[in-house]
């Protein structure tokens, strides 16, 4: 399992956000496959030299977003990304709220709604092409 | 176990001074004994030749050769007392190791008692031993006439104990946190007065009683101050 997490304390994102987003990115890019086990909280905390609670918080965040599921005693495992009913409705709502914030920011920058849509489409396309580049 | 470890540490720290005092006393003491078989006495208890038996027996001191060693004995004792108190009670402030010493599972009183024990042991094992050696030598090995009486050894013990009085006074002065020209001066003034009053009585019992009282008067506030001081 090729999971490489890097953190930069003192940067603008809280540490648990950095960890969660790196892991979710790894999942999205296919570096972590469904069923893969995430490193134990203690081990990752020791490696990164951070509070284990921060790692736990990151894993919790990922679990709430539907990327992983934790089984007491065994560890935390990557979930199959295919949608599963109303749990994902909540996730979609959360995603929607996040997108709203981004929309507000975009509009405030002075972008017209059309330009904003164009901008979003471009980003999605770029993300997918990167995924294709890295994994077969 | 922890008390032993602490005692070992305190003794080890006092050792250089203790050995130095013992060494100086040994060298100069023997030198005086061997090279100066003089009858003069350097004490205020000087007896003139007309003193009769009754008066003599009331006095602690008798003219004897070994009494000439008394002056350096007193001087070294006083110096050792001062040195040990500085090492034990002032030096940690200088090296800022009080927190290291005191934040432990041991009461401050215990630390205090261990320090006192180490100091007393230092006196006993060095100066008192060398003095005893000098005394025994002058009684058995040297060729003095008349040989010194046993109570001259007591005289030496009395002089050595003055060193402990200075030890307590100097320690108290170190531990007090007042300005040097106020409360801190008290132990210094007291020790001068005490030295005078300790020498004043003419019977051994009273001499030692005065010395004991002086030590108590200094040791009790020292203990209190040490217990409560914020380091």
């Amino acid at each position, binding site marked *: 399992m090729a999971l490489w997490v890097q953190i930069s304390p003192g940067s603008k994102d809280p540490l648990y956000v950095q960890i969660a987003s790196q892991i979710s990115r790894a999942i999205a890019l296919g570096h972590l496959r469904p069923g893969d086990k995430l490193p134990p909280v203690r081990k990752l905390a020791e490696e990164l030299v951070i509070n284990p609670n921060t790692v736990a918080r990151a894993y919790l965040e990922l679990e709430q977003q539907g990327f992983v599921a934790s089984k007491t005693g065994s560890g935390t495992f990557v979930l199959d990304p295919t949608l599963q009913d109303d749990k994902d409705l909540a996730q979609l709502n959360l995603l929607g709220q996040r997108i709203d914030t981004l929309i507000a920011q975009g509009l405030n920058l002075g972008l017209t709604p059309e330009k904003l849509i164009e901008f979003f489409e471009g980003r999605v396309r770029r993300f997918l092409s990167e995924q294709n580049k890295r994994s077969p | 176990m922890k008390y032993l470890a602490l005692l070992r540490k305190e003794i080890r720290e006092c050792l250089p001074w203790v050995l130095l005092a013992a060494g100086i006393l040994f060298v100069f003491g023997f030198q005086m004994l061997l090279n100066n078989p003089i009858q003069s006495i350097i004490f205020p208890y000087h007896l003139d030749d007309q003193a009769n038996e009754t008066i003599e027996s009331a006095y602690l001191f008798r003219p004897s050769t070994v009494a000439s060693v008394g002056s350096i004995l007193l001087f070294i004792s006083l110096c050792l007392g001062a040195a040990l108190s500085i090492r034990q009670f002032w030096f940690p402030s200088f090296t800022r190791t009080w927190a290291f010493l005191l934040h432990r599972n041991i009461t401050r009183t215990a630390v205090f008692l261990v320090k006192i024990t180490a100091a007393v042991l230092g006196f006993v094992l060095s100066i008192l031993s060398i003095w005893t050696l000098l005394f025994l030598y002058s009684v058995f090995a040297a060729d003095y006439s008349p040989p010194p009486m046993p109570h001259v050894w007591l005289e030496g013990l009395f002089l050595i104990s003055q060193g402990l009085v200075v030890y307590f006074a100097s320690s108290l002065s170190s531990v007090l946190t007042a300005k040097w020209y106020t409360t801190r001066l008290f132990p210094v003034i007291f020790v001068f007065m005490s030295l005078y009053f300790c020498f004043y009585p003419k019977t051994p019992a009273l001499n030692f009683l005065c010395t004991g009282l002086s030590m108590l008067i200094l040791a009790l506030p020292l203990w209190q101050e040490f217990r409560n001081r*914020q380091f």
Partner: protein
Amino acid sequence: MNDFVLQTFQLTKYYHKTPALDHLNLCVPKGCVYGLLGRNGSGKTTAIKLILGLLAPTAGRAEVVGHPSDNLPPSLRSRIGYITEGHHLERWMTIRELEHFQKAFYPDQWDRRFFAEMLDYFELSPKRKIKTLSNGQRAQVNLALTLAANPELLIMDDPTLGLDAAVCRQFLEGMVHLIQKEGRTILFSSHILSDVERVADRIAVIDKGVLRADCTLEEFRMQIRKYLFEFPQPNIPVDTLPGLIHSKQNQQMLEATVVKTPEEAIYEWARRHQAAVEPVPMSIEDQFIEFTGPKQAQKLFSWEMPV
């Protein structure tokens, strides 16, 4: 018995007429890594010394595991590890002699192997005398001595002041190693904010003896935010911005830091004044500096986080 390992109640300390600490109320729960932040002279060291009973308070009191700080029983002290900056150890001792000395006080708790491993890791020979060690090496020995005694509560007062990055990292590793064990609590003050961010669960910010924030690290990070505004004209009603603690204005541009203000309120205010707004990312250092910032900011807003 509550779940707090450390508590202070209106803890106050005056040096002559100057308040070093002013009615400090702190609670450190068990199992927490609690970071004390503050500028130099803010009162962090005073607070720690009062908690450990090394200083007497002018008013108020502190308790450790329910015991009053001014009379901590010796048995409790054996469960508390204490490291301060300077790492002053007896200079004449060798590392081995120090180990024997320390071991005698913790006969049941001492982890001989761990101490040896740490010395190995630091590449320090037990035969070396403390006086031959550099500041960093002395700090390493102090860390090993303290952690090998397996403390339940570790209190550190700016242990990495003046030390290089490698030693700072080793202290962090030591802290992470300790937290992994059951029921350990750490209270530490540090001036390296990125280190605090790495290990702290909760932080308290003390400024001139007064507690200005006492919350989780996440709350602190989330609630102090900076925005860049561009107004149509230079006349900017800065004072009406809710939650403002710091601002910088350059003609029509305004950079403002706010505290505990919901994002919608910011955008609403910007809309009302026809300003463009953009969030500016802040590092924890930026947040700390502006939160404990110049006097003007404090006059505008005196803020305490909910516990």
